């Protein structure tokens, strides 16, 4: 199961993957580096209890997958070396050969087994439903949650289960980028249930009060290790090492150390050691299908996500233009106190990350006003861009020659009339080209709001790519859709500018 707290890291990783090699942050897992270290990949960002930075020494990683990787490496006579890979890129990195073994609470899916070499499963988990304690009697299964919002991590089996329940029971699936905010939003009422694995559910129950987790499994699945599709020889050796560790209790000791050992594991271990099928719930929509078939299935949701991106960008830009114009006028015409306040606003909005602003508006203000995700995204983008727009408009207003303003004064125009009839219209023309640039940037920056669970184009593409196991078709489609939105805009802006520059026919 994914565990990512990195804000928007998935989005960044998606773009990095499209463009070039993933960021590889080598960290020593344990011991001294040998001449041929055993490279293993995982995501340490918010990865407890699987892989996380050691709180005592952040240059080291700790976790149950770290211990398993160490066990495997030592059995191979090598020293483990950790490679940081964003969770959604792990499959791609394994296929590229960025590491020998990927371990990070990776789910066992048919698509993954089809595309990569997979180890035997080493842990069995249950997907469980968590609700507010007061709702315990009425929300027992997904079928009870018709018309309600149910949250989970995007690009996971749990998300596929929710999409299936969306079709079958009419629930609304909400995708998050991390495993903490679904529970926080459940507690404050933004969603009505969370479907995640029992490990994460138990961890969150300890942090967030007033929740109840139904122990009945909605689905059962397992964690596996992944290797490049051709590395079946190494995979078989690792399978032997894992079986030996299951047999002699070393794996149990590791799982106990990280508090995830439970009654499900002994029978599961017995099945694995007997080479018997471990079962698990059939996973909806994850059986391997052709890329073309998958594309056909995802195309409608990509188009819908494009509309979300377009609507969000247009509305946010409208807000940014209105607020930006107000700020610019205030800074040009206002008194010292007003100018100081507005300058401070602009500097704060430009000087802090937009992701931070989005989180403050959506989660930080939740205690005061519980904004719907789309509205929070709109306000966040709009207010952030207002700061940039205001600087463009201020510059444009200052660029209108003083002489014209004096001519207007002698002609008896009031300050307001001068702004409306003379200064504003000319400033607007100066501002048009940079405004169009900003609108195109807004189209792309709107992908950041996926951290607020808004399903826009980049997020939908990422889910598509994760399920398809390739970025080629999703990346090309996504790029095409963004260009289809931005190129006409650029064209329109050029035409408007040309129309205002050309001599007027008389």
């Amino acid at each position: 199961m994914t565990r990512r707290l990195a804000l928007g890291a998935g989005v960044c990783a998606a773009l990095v993957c499209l463009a070039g090699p993933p960021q590889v942050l080598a960290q020593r897992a344990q011991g001294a580096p040998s001449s041929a270290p055993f490279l293993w990949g995982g995501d340490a960002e918010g990865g407890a209890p699987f892989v996380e930075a050691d709180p005592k020494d952040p240059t080291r990683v700790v976790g149950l997958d770290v211990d398993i990787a160490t066990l495997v490496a030592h059995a191979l006579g090598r020293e483990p070396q950790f490679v940081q890979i964003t969770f959604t890129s792990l499959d791609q990195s394994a296929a590229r050969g960025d590491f020998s073994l990927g371990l990070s609470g990776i789910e066992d899916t048919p698509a993954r087994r089809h595309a990569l070499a997979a180890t035997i499963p080493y842990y069995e988990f249950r997907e469980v439903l968590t609700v507010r304690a007061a709702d315990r009697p009425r929300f027992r299964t997904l079928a009870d949650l018709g018309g309600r919002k149910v949250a989970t991590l995007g690009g996971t089996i749990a998300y596929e289960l929710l999409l299936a329940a969306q079709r079958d029971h009419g629930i609304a699936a909400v995708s998050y980028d991390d495993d903490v905010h679904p529970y926080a939003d459940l507690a404050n009422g933004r969603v009505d249930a969370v479907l995640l694995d029992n490990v994460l559910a138990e961890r969150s129950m300890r942090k967030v009060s007033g929740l109840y987790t139904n122990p009945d499994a909605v689905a059962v699945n397992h964690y596996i290790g992944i290797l490049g599709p051709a590395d079946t020889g190494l995979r078989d050796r690792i399978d032997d090492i894992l079986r030996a560790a299951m047999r002699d209790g070393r794996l149990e000791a590791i799982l106990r150390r990280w508090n995830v050992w439970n009654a499900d594991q002994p029978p599961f271990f017995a099945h694995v050691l007997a080479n018997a099928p471990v079962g698990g719930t059939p996973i909806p929509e994850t059986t391997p299908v052709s890329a073309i078939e998958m594309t056909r299935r995802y195309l409608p949701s990509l188009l819908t996500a494009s509309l979300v991106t377009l609507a969000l960008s247009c509305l946010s830009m409208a807000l940014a233009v209105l607020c930006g114009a107000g700020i610019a006028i205030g800074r040009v015409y206002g008194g010292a106190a007003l100018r100081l306040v507005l300058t401070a606003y602009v500097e704060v909005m430009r000087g802090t990350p937009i992701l931070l602003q989005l989180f403050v508006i959506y989660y930080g203000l939740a205690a005061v006003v519980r904004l719907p995700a789309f509205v929070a995204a709109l306000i966040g983008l709009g207010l952030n861009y207002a700061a940039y727009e205001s600087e463009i408009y201020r510059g444009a207003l200052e660029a209108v020659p003083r002489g014209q303003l004096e001519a207007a004064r002698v002609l008896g125009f009031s300050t307001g009339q001068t702004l409306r009839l003379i200064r504003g219209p000319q400033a607007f023309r100066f501002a048009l080209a940079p405004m169009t640039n900003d609108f195109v940037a807004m189209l792309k920056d709107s992908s950041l709001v996926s951290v607020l669970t808004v399903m826009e184009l980049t997020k939908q593409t990422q889910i598509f790519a994760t399920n398809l196991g390739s970025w080629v078709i999703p990346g090309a489609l996504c790029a095409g859709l963004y260009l289809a939105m931005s190129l006409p805009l650029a064209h329109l802006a050029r035409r408007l500018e040309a129309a205002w520059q050309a001599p007027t026919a008389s």
Partner: protein
Amino acid sequence: MSPVLDVRDVRLRRGARDVLRGVTFEVGAGEVVALMGLSGSGKTTVLRAVAGLDPVDAGRIVVSGVSIEAGVPRPPAGPAAVQVGMVFQFHHLFEHLTAIENVCLAPVHVGRTARDAAAATARRLLADLGVEHRQFALPRELSGGEAQRVAIARALALDPPLLLLDEPTASLDPARRDDLGAALRALAAQGRALLVTSHDDDFVRAHATTVLVLADGAVVERGAPADVLTRPQHDATKALLTGTRPRTIS
């Protein structure tokens, strides 16, 4: 009959510098008064003070009974305040509007004249100045002379009794200068008062009724151009008429 413009002992300081140190003069209806002086003598500042653009530190300026005084706020914007039309040296036409829109804007929005009536007046003004055929041109498409005529039409659109022109001959060739002079005399003949800064003594001799010579922010010589420019008494006036004639651009 009281003058259209009455300037009484006007003083104006910019920082530590006394730009105007007690300027007094009058302009009556039908007069074309030329303000001459070396650059920095305060010619343009006098126009700006009369137009209400630079506040005065002492003294009084009365235009058709409306007065500007030190420490008294300007009258609020609107038609009552518009007793002065001003033509800037660089015209300062509104770049986003056509010639006729430049002329119509103040009558429609300040004078509350109906659009059709304002347009008819604007066309007549442009025709009188010989630029009616350029009415749909944007300022950047106009020649210097055409832009100046449009600027004059714009300044006249609210029919002010006093017209100020800052260095109107600066960018004109000699033939155009005489056309402009004739146009200005025609405006004066309609009963307007005109105050014109210039460094061009031929133009002043030919078209002004009175000349004032400014030096160091004070009027040092005044009279009919034929007298003042033929028999200059003050050093500043003599300096104006020597060969090294500074081309002022302020």
